[in-house]
């Protein structure tokens, strides 16, 4: 199996769609890479792959080598800056036209997930993040089956479960937690996404999708709560247009001032969307410190799990 050189496999799961699995996966990957780990991202959302768009590599094509299919490189490791490499594999790369529907029934999806797990040639990786579609169906069953059979027990680190705070979302995500318990996948923690929005005009924070639901759910299931992530439209703009996030003076996130220094030059080239500089630009995003802490928690949860 081509996963043999991967040290830790982390799944990103959620029963609910649109809660930010792909954006959490993206940010975990960027943070892990900033912390010096080599990271791979595997997107198994077969009928709605978002990862290529997230990393700005929609036009990339996968090539084949003797060891398997080669994933797309977002950036290489930079030992002087202490950052790790980042590689991505998604079904999106195999589609002829981006608007085409992939209409697949379960058995075909199962075959594809298996093939993705066995035939992608991941070189030495510290972390492989697997982004999943919503639900507890074909893709998830095949993923769990294949990993539990073929991956070494110390390889399959566990799952990060994403939710939004409102009850309608946690109701579905509770089902996902039960799926993990049933299939014996360790839960590394719960991330509560979209928990508040700070008005750029008056700095009033509104809980658009209510608040606290993720933490209560984590408590009910006795799993670690990794933290809340507010909504930051600047992150979306960064993903969609490649613009470096800038914040007005006095913007506070979790008590930290993240406003852009007044004298910071506005560099024109920075507005160009290109995959290689994504990680550097992400550093300026208000969500980066939140994810950096969360990533550290995930890393230590993985290490604890391996000792146990």
């Amino acid at each position, binding site marked *: 199996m081509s996963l043999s050189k991967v040290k830790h496999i982390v799944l990103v799961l959620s029963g609910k769609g*649109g809660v930010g699995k792909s954006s959490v996966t993206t940010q975990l990957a960027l943070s892990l890479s900033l912390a010096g780990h080599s990271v791979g991202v595997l997107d198994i959302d077969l009928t709605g792959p978002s990862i290529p768009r997230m990393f700005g590599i929609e036009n990339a094509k996968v090539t084949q080598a003797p060891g398997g299919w080669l994933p797309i490189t977002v950036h290489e490791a930079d030992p002087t800056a202490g950052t790790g490499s980042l590689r991505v594999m998604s079904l999106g790369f195999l589609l002829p036209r981006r608007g085409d529907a992939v209409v697949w029934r*379960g058995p075909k999806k199962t075959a594809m997930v298996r093939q993705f797990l066995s035939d992608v040639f991941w070189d030495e990786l510290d972390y492989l993040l697997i982004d999943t579609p919503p639900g507890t169906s074909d893709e998830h069953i095949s993923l769990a089956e294949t990993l539990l059979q073929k991956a070494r027990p110390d390889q399959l680190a566990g799952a990060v479960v994403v939710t939004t705070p409102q009850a309608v979302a946690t109701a579905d995500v509770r089902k996902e937690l039960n799926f993990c318990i049933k299939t014996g996948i360790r839960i590394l923690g719960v991330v509560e996404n979209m928990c508040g929005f700070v008005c750029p005009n008056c700095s009033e924070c509104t809980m658009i999708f209510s608040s606290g639901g993720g933490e209560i759910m984590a408590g009910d299931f006795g799993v670690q709560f990794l933290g809340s992530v507010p909504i930051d439209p600047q992150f979306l703009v960064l993903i969609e247009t490649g613009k470096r996030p800038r914040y007005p003076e006095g913007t506070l996130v979790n008590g930290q001032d993240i406003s852009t220094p007044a004298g910071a030059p506005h560099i024109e080239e920075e507005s160009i969307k290109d995959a290689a500089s994504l990680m550097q630009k992400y550093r300026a995003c208000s969500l980066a410190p939140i994810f950096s802490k969360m990533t550290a928690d995930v890393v230590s949860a993985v290490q604890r799990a391996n000792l146990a």
Partner: protein
Amino acid sequence: MAPSLIDPPESAESVLANPLKAPPKLVAPEPEHCPGPESEKAGLADSCAGCPNQAICASAAPKGPDPDLDLITARLAGIKHKILVLSGKGGVGKSTLTCMLAHAFATNPSNTVGVMDTDICGPSIPKMLGVETETIHVSNAGWSPAWAMDNLAVMSIQFMLPNRDDAIIWRGPKKNGLIKQFLKDVEWGDLDFLLVDTPPGTSDEHLSVNTYLKGSGIDGAVMVTTPQEVSLLDVRKEIDFCRKAGIKVLGLVENMSAFVCPKCTHASEIFKATTGGGRALAEEMGIAFLGSVPLDPRIGMACDYGESFFDSFPDSPACKALKEVVRGLAGTVGLDPLEVMPDD
């Protein structure tokens, strides 16, 4: 040498035209890269060479037309309008919109409305309509749906779960079976509208709903999206699916467009439409644009508590926008918009 790069994804047309084969009896476990014994390529794919099951899979007969289709058509004969709510993307508000439409159609007491939740792994409809704790009653006429209001019937897998949080770990064929039962065995009676809420994606549930409802006729599908490109990308695929499956797209609704700060009334685009949003997509695909619904935290709250948003917050701008959407939709299925949703 690694196995060759997978064959290009099967075209949607061929999947739609070729129903699954009857599952053959296998003599050995399925090998790696098995295309699936029920798939069209069973026994014929490159990876089938040398598999002990090859001959069995290749000779499995195509299933032929499902004998239950006639039963379904008969069962649904009393339903005037069947509307699907679709989106390629999750969490954009399919279930919310379905509930809003249901409440809107049901405000007229002479209408009877049914809601069928085909999201098997993540059912949200029961919670949003406040019937989460209901169970299904079975009589000799069939399964009785739960009633959220005197004229609003609901069916969802949630009603069949022993515990609220139980995971439904089902593969495709099992999900198809349940959807068929929802259509064949549920005593829907004479409905003016049947709204079908779907999970995100273009997979088993969508194919089954399409197959089973073809005979009795679908009015069309309402597409839901949020303004950002990551979402439009998936919705474009869903529209492509409808075209290929011959489902009429009634229109596109853009949800969560702008957020108005309750303190300073400053409107922010949280999910920024960097590529023109829903309106541009509707134009690009040549479908009707039914309207933009602003992001209002009270919609989410109404859903969490299972209340009707129209009744609880009739003055909110989101409510006004939704009423326009309902009127637009009523027009596309040939009803008088003002009769369905009268002016205030």
